[in-house]
C-alpha cells in the first residue's frame, strides 16, 4: 500500500476514455482495496454489497465514492454511528446523494464517524474508532475520520463529510488531504442528520484541489427542500490578482503547538518568496471562537436530538411509562459525548441561564463574523493552520472533552462566520505525519479559493508530499 496516493477523478476519466479502465474495473479495484484494508482501518460504518450506481453520462460517471453515515441514502442504514438509530433505514435520498447519482458517481458505502458528528477523532463512534492510514496508532481526526481514512488509503478518489466546527477540514489535515467546508448555504443540508443547523455543511474530501472543486460543482446549488440554500447574486470568479494577498492572523498562532507553528511560519515564508503578498490581519474575537461554538453547537444539538426517543424508530428500551421509555432509550442509545453536549446545550438554553450562555454566544458570533469580513477586505483569503497539533494518538483525548474541543481552535472561526474554508496539505514531518494549512475565503468565493489553493498545491509540492507520507506497510499483527 502506498501513502496518500491513488488515482484522481481526472485520471480515472482519462483511463476510461482511453480504454485502459472501465467503470466495472474501477469498481472492482475499489472494492478489493476496501475489503482488504477495512479490518485494520475500520473506516466504514456500512459497506454496500450492491453499490448505488449513477447515470452513464454524468461528469463523475464510474467514479466510486463513500458518504458519511449521517447522510441519507434511500433504503440504506442511516445511523450516525449511534446506537439510538440502530436499525433505522432512510426512506429518502439526501439532495447530495441524488446529485452525485445523477452525475454518475458510484456509492460504495457509509463511513465511520464520531456519533452525530460530535467529536474530533472518530473515537466517539458507537462501533469503535477509525485508524489513521498514515499511522495506525493515531486518529484520522473527526468527525469525518472514516471518510478521510478511506480517501487517504486510496480506496476512492473522494468521500463526503460534514463540517460543523471543522469535521471535514481537521480530518483532511490529519490524513494529508484536501477538504472543503463550503459557504453556509451553498450545499443543501436536506438529508443530512442535523447536529447544529446554523453551522452544519456537507463538504468533499479528496487528494487534490481539482477533485474537491469538481465534486463541489456537482453538490452546490439551491434546493427547494432546504430553504437555507442560496444562489449568490455576485459570485466571485476564479480570477486571482497578479499578486494574490493572503491575510495571516499571527496572534492566533499562539494556539498551535511549536512544531505546527514553526511549519506554518515556513509556509508563509514560502509564499512570500514566491511573490504572494502576506498581509497581517487581526482576529481578536476568534481567540474565543471555540468557546462560542461550544455553546451554540451544544444548544442547537440539544434541540435537534430531542427527536430521538426510541418511540417510532431506532433503539427502544422499554420502561413502565412512555416517559421512562424515552429516558431509558436516550440514555442507553446516546454515547457519553453526545449526552455531555445535550446536557450542556439544555443548560445553555435554560430560562435562567440563557442570557449568560446562549444569547451571549449569539452576540459574540457576530463579533467573529464582522472581524472576518473586515480582514477579508484587505486580502484574497486568510491563511492559518488547519489544526493546532499533528494527528494525536488514539486514546489521548477521548476522555478529556476540553482537550478534544481544543482540536477545533482554527476551524471554528470560519464555521461561526459562515465562510468557505479549505484545508490543504502543506508538508510532512520526518516521521511522516502530515502538516496542513487552511484558506478561508469571502462568502461564495469557493472558485477563487480553489484558484489560490492550486497555486499553493504547486508551491508546497503536495503531490510529492502525499507520495512520501508514511507508507502503510506495518506487519500483519500490528494493533
Amino acid at each position, binding site marked *: 500500500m502506498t501513502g496518500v496516493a491513488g488515482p484522481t477523478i481526472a485520471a480515472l476519466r482519462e483511463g476510461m476514455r482511453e480504454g485502459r479502465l472501465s467503470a466495472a474495473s474501477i469498481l472492482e479495484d475499489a472494492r478489493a482495496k476496501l475489503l482488504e484494508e477495512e479490518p485494520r482501518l475500520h473506516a466504514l460504518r456500512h459497506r454496500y454489497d450492491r453499490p448505488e450506481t449513477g447515470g452513464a453520462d454524468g461528469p463523475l460517471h464510474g467514479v466510486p465514492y463513500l458518504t458519511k453515515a449521517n447522510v441519507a441514502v434511500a433504503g440504506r442504514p442511516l445511523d450516525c454511528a449511534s446506537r439510538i438509530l440502530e436499525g433505522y433505514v432512510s*426512506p*429518502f435520498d439526501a439532495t447530495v446523494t441524488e446529485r452525485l447519482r445523477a452525475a454518475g458517481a458510484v456509492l460504495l458505502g457509509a463511513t465511520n464517524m464520531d456519533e452525530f458528528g460530535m467529536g474530533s477523532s472518530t473515537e466517539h463512534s458507537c462501533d469503535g474508532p477509525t485508524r489513521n492510514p498514515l499511522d495506525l496508532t493515531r486518529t484520522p481526526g473527526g468527525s469525518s475520520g472514516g471518510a478521510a481514512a478511506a480517501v487517504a488509503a486510496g480506496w476512492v478518489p473522494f468521500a463526503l463529510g460534514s463540517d460543523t466546527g471543522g469535521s471535514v477540514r481537521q480530518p483532511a489535515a490529519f490524513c494529508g488531504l484536501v477538504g472543503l467546508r463550503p459557504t453556509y448555504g451553498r450545499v443543501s443540508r436536506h438529508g443530512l442528520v442535523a447536529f447544529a443547523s446554523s453551522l452544519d455543511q456537507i463538504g468533499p474530501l479528496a487528494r487534490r484541489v481539482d477533485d474537491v472543486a469538481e465534486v463541489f460543482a456537482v453538490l452546490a446549488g439551491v434546493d427547494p427542500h432546504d430553504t437555507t440554500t442560496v444562489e449568490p447574486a455576485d459570485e466571485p470568479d476564479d480570477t486571482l490578482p497578479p499578486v494574490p494577498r493572503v491575510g495571516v492572523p499571527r496572534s492566533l498562532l499562539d494556539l498551535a503547538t511549536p512544531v505546527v507553528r514553526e511549519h506554518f511560519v515556513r509556509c508563509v515564508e514560502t509564499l512570500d518568496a514566491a511573490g504572494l503578498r502576506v498581509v497581517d490581519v487581526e482576529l*481578536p*474575537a476568534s*481567540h*474565543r471562537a471555540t*468557546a*462560542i461554538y*461550544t*455553546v451554540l453547537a*451544544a444548544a442547537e444539538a*440539544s434541540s435537534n436530538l*430531542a427527536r430521538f*426517543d426510541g418511540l417510532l424508530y431506532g433503539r427502544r428500551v422499554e420502561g413502565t411509562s412512555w416517559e*421512562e421509555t*424515552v*429516558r*431509558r432509550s*436516550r*440514555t442507553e442509545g*446516546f454515547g*457519553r459525548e453526545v*449526552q*455531555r453536549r*445535550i*446536557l*450542556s446545550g*439544555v*443548560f*445553555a438554553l*435554560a430560562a435562567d441561564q440563557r442570557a*449568560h*450562555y446562549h*444569547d*451571549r*454566544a*449569539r*452576540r*459574540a*458570533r*457576530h*463579533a467573529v*463574523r*464582522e*472581524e472576518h469580513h473586515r480582514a477579508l477586505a484587505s486580502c484574497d483569503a486568510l491563511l492559518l493552520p488547519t489544526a493546532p497539533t499533528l494527528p494525536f494518538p488514539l486514546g489521548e483525548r477521548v476522555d478529556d*472533552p*476540553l482537550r478534544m*474541543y481544543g482540536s477545533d481552535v482554527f476551524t471554528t472561526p470560519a464555521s461561526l462566520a459562515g465562510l468557505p474554508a479549505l484545508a490543504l496539505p502543506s508538508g510532512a514531518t520526518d516521521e511522516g505525519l502530515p502538516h496542513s494549512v487552511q484558506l478561508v475565503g469571502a462568502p461564495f468565493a469557493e472558485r477563487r479559493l480553489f484558484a489560490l489553493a492550486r497555486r499553493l498545491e504547486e508551491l508546497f509540492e503536495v503531490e510529492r508530499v502525499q507520495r512520501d507520507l508514511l507508507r502503510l506497510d506495518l506487519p500483519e499483527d500490528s494493533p
Partner: protein
Amino acid sequence: MSGEPFLDDLDLERVERLAQLELDEEAREALRADLGRILAFAAQMGEIPDQACEGGVDEETVVPMRWRADRVLRFEGLAEAVAAPDRREGWFVTPDSDGRT
C-alpha cells in the same frame, strides 16, 4: 463568572429531566464535573468586548401569528378523519399561513 460553575443536585436533576436522560450515580457525577469545566470554558466568551458584539442580533420582536380560518369539515368515518394529509411526491401537503399549498 469566576471559578468553575458547580451544578448542584437540583440543577443537575433539572437539566437531566429537560434532556430526557436517566443517569446512574457514577455517570451523573462524571457529567457534573464535565459540565462544570465546559461551562467555565464557555464563559471565556465574556472576554470579547460588548462593543464588538453589537449590531448582529436584532432585539427579539413579536411577529404576529397569521392564523388560518377555522373550517368545519365532515368526514364519513373515523378513518377518514384521522387520515394523514394529502401526499405529493412523498411529502405531506399542508397549506401555508396564506392558505396556499
